């Protein structure tokens, strides 16, 4: 029950993009086309899940037992950077079609604050192992949901008559604001 609550909350209520404002760069940058948005979403979900597992292990097996919590930021960022590299190499070797779909998005993920945010938030919320994994998957899916919805809207927006100064990032942010307002309706659904 607790796990289900964390899962739904990560997707809908405390959505990474629309509530925590994490991963705004790809959210605005890679949401112009629906299919690339889907690929980006899946790549982030994939990396988030692995990050959740690895960062939990580092935090609970190394940093906390030896009272090295002040190395959290340095170790998380280095682990994420090397993890993304490894995942990229692994996918390229094992599955060329998957690499075709996700490959170019993987390097972009290293500096994506959503991944770092996930590791930090899971540590901050003091989740146990299973909760962290569920939180990782849910947050990834939440990011995917937001970016796919955004891409769907932006494809239509291309045909709309947007005031000149708002074209590009301006209107995208306003759309995101209205989306955030919509997602706000999910608050309170978990008791």
């Amino acid at each position, binding site marked *: 029950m607790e796990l289900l609550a964390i899962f739904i909350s990560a997707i809908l209520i405390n959505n990474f993009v*629309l509530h925590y404002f994490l991963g*705004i*760069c790809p959210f605005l940058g890679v949401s112009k086309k629906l299919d690339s948005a889907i690929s980006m979403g899946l790549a982030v979900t994939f990396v988030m899940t692995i990050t959740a597992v690895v960062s939990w292990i580092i935090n609970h097996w190394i940093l906390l037992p030896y009272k090295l919590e002040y190395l959290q*930021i*340095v170790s998380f960022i280095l682990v994420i950077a090397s993890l993304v590299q490894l995942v990229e190499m692994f996918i390229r070797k094992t599955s060329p079609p998957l690499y075709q779909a996700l490959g170019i998005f993987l390097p972009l993920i290293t500096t994506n*604050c959503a991944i770092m945010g996930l590791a930090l938030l899971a540590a901050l919320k003091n989740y146990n192992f299973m909760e962290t994994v569920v939180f990782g998957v849910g947050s990834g899916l939440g990011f995917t949901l937001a970016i796919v919805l955004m891409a769907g809207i932006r494809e239509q927006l291309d045909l709309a008559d947007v005031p000149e*100064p708002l074209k590009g990032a*301006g209107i995208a*942010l306003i759309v995101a604001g209205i989306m*955030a307002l919509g997602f706000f309706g999910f608050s309170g659904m978990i008791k």
Partner: protein
Amino acid sequence: MASKTLSQEFIKGLWDENPIFRQLLGMCPTLAVTNAVINGIAMGLATTFVLVFSSIVVASIKKLIPNQVRIASYIVVIATFVTMADRFLAAFFPPISKSLGPYVPLIVVNCIILGRQEAFSSKNSVGRSFIDALGMSLGFIIALLILSSIREILGAGTWLGHQVLGPWFKPWIIMILPPGAFLTLGVLLGLIMVIDRKLQRSV
């Protein structure tokens, strides 16, 4: 680029290359912490500390670092200063540290900082990098200040905790909620475009 005077190097961060309004960098902290002016200022100062010191360090060790490992080295340098800022806030300003939550550690992935190392400090002298970092930070602080002032005044009727709007004012709570952040910045970007166009026409 190299022909710019030091003052131009400083000024460019404020408007022409303002990290938030023009380069659209560092959006996550910008949107997340601007629900109150005090949070915006704390975030701006923490980012300034990290950006200025990282730039100085990177500019002074740039010749020693082989090209292949430069990003990794920059990240370690940045992460070191971010940790220092984070621990300092937690030790001496616990309420601020609590309200900024994970966004202080997240300065480490703020694209402004890595971006300035890659685009500027790795190619310029220590002095020039220092001025550049200072200008960019000030541009960032100004942007945070504008955004958080709009949001706090409309959303709570206060500025830095002081009541500025009378009791007749019914706060637009939406402004301090996440949707308000997106809407305010979106409209602000539009306004900046309009002003910029006016300026260019008059030149």
